[in-house]
């Protein structure tokens, strides 16, 4: 009979959980779930050696263990610190942690271009979510932000280092997923950049996964670039019979009507891919006929994507007049006063997706 493994009792923000020895504080917190889970920008459970770098997951260990109850002197990276039996951890209950995290977010945004309006990652960007939850309203940085030139990694992937937060996830992915590593970090400190032995086309079938692991818009899918905003697309689970044994063939199609705009791996609620997919599935199968559709994808993250989502949507019952307690809304601007609609027959509220400049003529 298998010996019963002893579990470690841990308390995170006063909530108890029992986990196997060797579990990190972060994963113990994920076991509990909810808002006590520290944000993680660099750790990726599927990538060996990841974590410890971004420092967003810092927590305070208020009690080391049952055997040695002393608190740890410094905040620790929860993704790379393992639990001990009897450990007590403070995350959202520690003002010190909140303060430090705010500092880390400020550091991460210091040199970030904040070009979300033109960034393909907007809407599914972890840095956006993180800043929204933990960031300050304004910046205290008055200096020029660092910039890099965009680099094409082969013909399907673009690296825009200016947005990179140096989480190293793509480096680990390239290391662990592809046989031929042509991906690493060059330079140090603020000048460090993701090196790709420049512009080399990476001819292995799994390099596309770096797009999925990238928490920001530094690595983007060129076949999808500027095609659409993610929140206008409907994510749909699909699969195909992929011949590559390393590819799971299970993907998410990002669709609008019958058109497949892009293909990604399926991600869990922490934004981690569930299983890796190959580049053929990702880049070359953009026809619905290539796929067996399973049904709508449930997006669990607080992402804006779920706004355009059809699961669990409540139609507002109130009309505007009701909300305004009987007052009639005042028309501030009539679009027809300043623009001519090209297609007069069109009902503006029925335009499929965002209105486009082509839809109007300047008067």
């Amino acid at each position, binding site marked *: 009979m298998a010996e019963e493994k002893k579990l470690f009792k841990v308390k995170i923000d006063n909530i108890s959980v029992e986990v196997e020895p060797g579990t990190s504080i972060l994963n113990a917190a994920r076991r509990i779930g909810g808002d006590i889970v520290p944000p993680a920008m660099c750790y990726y459970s599927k990538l060996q050696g990841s974590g410890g*770098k971004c420092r967003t997951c810092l927590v305070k260990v208020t009690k080391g263990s049952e055997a040695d109850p002393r608190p740890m002197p410094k*905040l620790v990276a929860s993704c790379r610190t393992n639990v001990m039996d009897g450990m007590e951890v403070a995350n959202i209950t520690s003002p010190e942690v909140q303060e430090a995290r705010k500092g880390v977010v400020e550091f991460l945004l210091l040199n970030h271009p904040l070009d979300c309006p033109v960034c393909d990652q907007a809407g599914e960007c972890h840095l956006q979510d993180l800043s929204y939850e933990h960031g300050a309203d304004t910046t205290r940085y008055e200096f020029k932000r660092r910039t890099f030139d965009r680099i094409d990694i082969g013909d399907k992937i673009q690296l825009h280092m200016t947005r990179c937060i140096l989480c190293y996830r793509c480096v680990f992915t390239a290391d662990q997923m592809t046989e031929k590593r042509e991906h690493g970090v060059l330079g140090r400190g603020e000048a460090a950049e993701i090196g790709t032995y420049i512009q080399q086309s990476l001819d292995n079938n799994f390099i596309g996964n770096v797009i999925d692991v990238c928490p920001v818009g530094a690595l983007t899918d060129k076949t999808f670039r500027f095609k659409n905003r993610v929140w206008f697309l409907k994510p749909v689970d699909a699969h195909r019979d992929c011949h590559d044994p390393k590819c799971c063939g299970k993907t998410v199609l990002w669709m609008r009507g019958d058109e497949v705009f892009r293909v990604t791996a399926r991600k869990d609620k922490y934004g981690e891919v569930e299983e890796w997919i190959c580049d053929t599935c990702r880049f070359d199968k953009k026809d619905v006929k290539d796929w067996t559709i399973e049904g709508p994808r449930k997006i669990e993250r607080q992402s804006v994507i779920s706004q355009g989502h059809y699961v669990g949507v409540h139609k507002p019952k109130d009309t505007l007049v009701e909300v305004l307690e009987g007052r009639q809304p005042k028309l501030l601007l009539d679009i027809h006063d300043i623009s001519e609609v090209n297609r007069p027959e069109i009902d503006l509220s029925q335009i499929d997706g965002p209105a486009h400049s082509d839809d109007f003529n300047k008067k």
Partner: protein
Amino acid sequence: MGRKLLFDKAHIEGIRYYDVYRANGGYGSAEKALKSMKPEEVLEEVKKSGLRGRGGAGFPTGMKWSFIAKPEGVPRYLVCNADESEPGTFKDRYLMEFIPHLLIEGLLISSYTLGCNSCYIYIRGEYAWIPEILEQAIAEAKKNGWLGKNIQGTGFDLEIYVQRGAGAYICGEETALIESLEGKRGNPRIKPPFPAVKGLWDCPTVVNNVETLAAVVPILRIGGDEYAKYGIGKSTGTKLISACGNINKPGVYEIEMNISVEEFIYSDEYCGGIANGKRLKACIPGGSSVPILPANLLLKTAKGEQRMMTYEGLADGGFATGTMLGSGGFIVLDEDQCIVKNTLTFARFYHHESCGQCSPCREGTGWMKRVLQNIENGKGKMSDIDLLWDIQRKIEGNTICPLGDAAAWPVAAAIRHFRDEFEWHVLHPEEATKRNFGLAHYADPLEIAAPAAV
């Protein structure tokens, strides 16, 4: 004259070479250890000596050695940290250049104690001429049966390899050093696991500073108990101090850790006083990473006692009024030196040397540098001083390796003790580009809080 243990024979002509070194008692300690002592007995002597790491942190060496894991069939490694890149520190260079055999003998004894058969000296790339000196010494030692197979018929094997770094301060951090030694990018590892369990090529490894390993030789020569009689309290033995800045006699000095800071600066045996008849303004006594102190707090502790050149003496008062012995890079500033400029110089260094792995250090060091540049160039604002304080506070303790702390402390200490000089820079931007703030009140006698009435 203070007693010496490392440099007692440094003045002898030709001590760099094996024959002279041997003729003057060299390899006597190694002979004693290998031929008449068990490794555990050597370890016991090192423990008794109270030797503490000379690389900066001051961790007890005997204890560090006893932590090394000893799994069956797995090699163990000793790595000698000769990366010496901390601004103000140049003591290891002197030791390796002039008495390389002292280091080789230390490595031999230490490897024997730890059970290592391969040992690496990782030396900073800028010391371009030293690897040759070391390799020549290694060849001489090998020719005379002190390295290689079956050393002096004892059955113990040891090879020493010299590996040059490529010019990165961060590769002095022990886990970054190990990465670099393995041929990888010199990023510090996330600990645990510690090198004592998983170090070089995932094998148990001890990393020690050059001076630490050399000090094992006199410990074996005179015995751990006798070594512990040098110095005061937990600061046993002698320490190499590399003194620089506005002093009459810059250089590397071996001090017994029982003299005062005042004696070290002003006595003719050591620094010989402040150069050009100027007055002492401030000092960074342990290399650029340790907190700067104004003259008054440097010479006397907040309690009004003489400040001693020991681990405890320099740390007296904690960060509020004390500093650290660090790596012994003793930088002296006279009344003509500008603290803002000095702080900027250090900040620029840490910005340049950050490996860039963790966000607080990667982004924060550059930010501090730029804010300091503004203050230095007459474009500073009052709020910048508080901003600097806030940035350093958010770096300190939140990073992977201590470089983050090392970048934060100099800024913190400069603001803590020299805030009025920073404010003067902000308020008088024109004047600040033409003259320095000067000595101001930084050497004034301290007000000692009267002991509570009984």
